[in-house]
């Protein structure tokens, strides 16, 4: 993390001097992460890609004013998150239906859809593949159910490892609000997963262990 931050600082300084290649390197470094954050919040692939584009354009335009008070990625994810929130306000109704279409399309892609799942690289049997695909689908559906303010905090925390202070800065709310939102986001996500038969935290071999819990544990191994 520190090396990345240091490298980012060097690249940012060079980009501020007008070096196009340095900004491109920043784009290459963060493109998929920014996309994952955007997708986690807006839940639509094409919209998330549009947000990636918009976020980097906005970052480039604002580079002369970037003083390095926060790290580049915190700043970039703040831009991304704000764009996601703006997008959510504009497309509230459209979002749910288009994600359904997108999910259907990805599912129809078959092997390509399986390829990218971090947990699916160790697939050893068709049964396991099916189980993991079900888990992935369940997570997508559960995420869809969360309010956007909850998706934002849980995505920034779990995907970016942001501290509460960084999230408070990125989202423009007090730290206590972040703590509360994150707790509720986790609780609601777990409830949505449990409604789909996936139980977390049931323990290894404990008395409350369920088939769902065992399956989920296997699925999250990268």
């Amino acid at each position, binding site marked *: 993390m520190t090396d990345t931050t240091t490298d980012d600082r060097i690249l940012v300084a060079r980009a501020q001097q007008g070096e196009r290649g340095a900004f491109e390197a920043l784009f290459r470094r963060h493109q998929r992460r920014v996309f994952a954050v955007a997708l986690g919040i807006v839940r639509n692939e094409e919209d998330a890609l549009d947000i990636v584009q918009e976020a*980097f354009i906005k970052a480039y335009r604002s580079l002369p004013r970037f003083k390095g008070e926060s790290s580049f990625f915190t700043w970039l994810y703040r831009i991304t998150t704000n764009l996601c929130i703006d997008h959510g306000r504009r497309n509230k109704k459209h979002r749910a239906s288009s994600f359904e279409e997108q999910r259907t399309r990805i599912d129809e892609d078959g092997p*390509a859809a399986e390829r990218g799942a971090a947990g699916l690289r160790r697939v050893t049997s068709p049964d396991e593949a099916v189980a993991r695909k079900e888990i992935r689908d369940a997570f997508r559906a559960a995420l869809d159910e969360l309010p956007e303010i909850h998706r934002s905090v849980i995505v920034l925390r779990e995907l970016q490892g942001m501290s509460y202070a960084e999230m408070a800065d990125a989202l423009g709310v007090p730290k206590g609000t972040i703590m509360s939102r994150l707790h509720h986001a986790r609780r609601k996500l777990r409830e949505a997963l449990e409604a789909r038969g996936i139980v977390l935290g049931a323990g290894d071999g404990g008395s409350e262990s369920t088939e769902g819990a065992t399956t989920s544990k296997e699925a*999250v191994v990268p």
Partner: protein
Amino acid sequence: MSHPSFEPETLSAYHDGELPPEDAARVEAALRADPKLARETEAIDELGTALRAVLEADANDVPDARFEQIWDAIEREIDAQVAPESTGLVARLRAWWGGAWARPALAVAGVSVASLALFFALRDPPRDAQDTQVAAGRPTPAQAEPSPEPPPAKAGVPSGDVAQPVAAPTPGGPPALAAATVEDDASNEAEVEFIEFQGSSGRIERIEGRRGTTTVIWVREDEPVDTERDL
């Protein structure tokens, strides 16, 4: 999951390492005493790991070519942004105006101009020919002839329908321009409206004043070019 000795959010904050040491110690003691509470922290951990795996998998599904398209679009935006800002006269003036020193400098310049105006208003009008030529811009016989070897043009000022700066030499420099004048019968003075220089011509927009050893005159050229000219 709630616990009698702390708020439900506290366990989540403990998991994230966001509690002060004394609160964290309290949670750790509760975790040792209550296996169910310990499993709650495991569940938080598993939830985060699973969420990362799913979102990263979705991100990995996007082909590199799609990100190439996005970078191309970003580059087009950057190009569109850089071109006008690096050369646009309006943008440069705006940048200059935005400088911290610009407004105080203008204030000083304004006071100076007002002082000069007051000075000239109180003194007698110029009598000799040289004063008239300088004040009103009437060309001397030498200035009316084109320069035999005009110096090279300076690059960097945009063309278009904006006026172009023309750097005329201060008195004593090489003759370079021919000017059309309008006589004012009443005062016997003249105003220069058009000039010809280096095979071009244009209408004088304003005389900016001295820049070092040269005098800058803004000319709207009849056929604009992309250069700042020395005469």
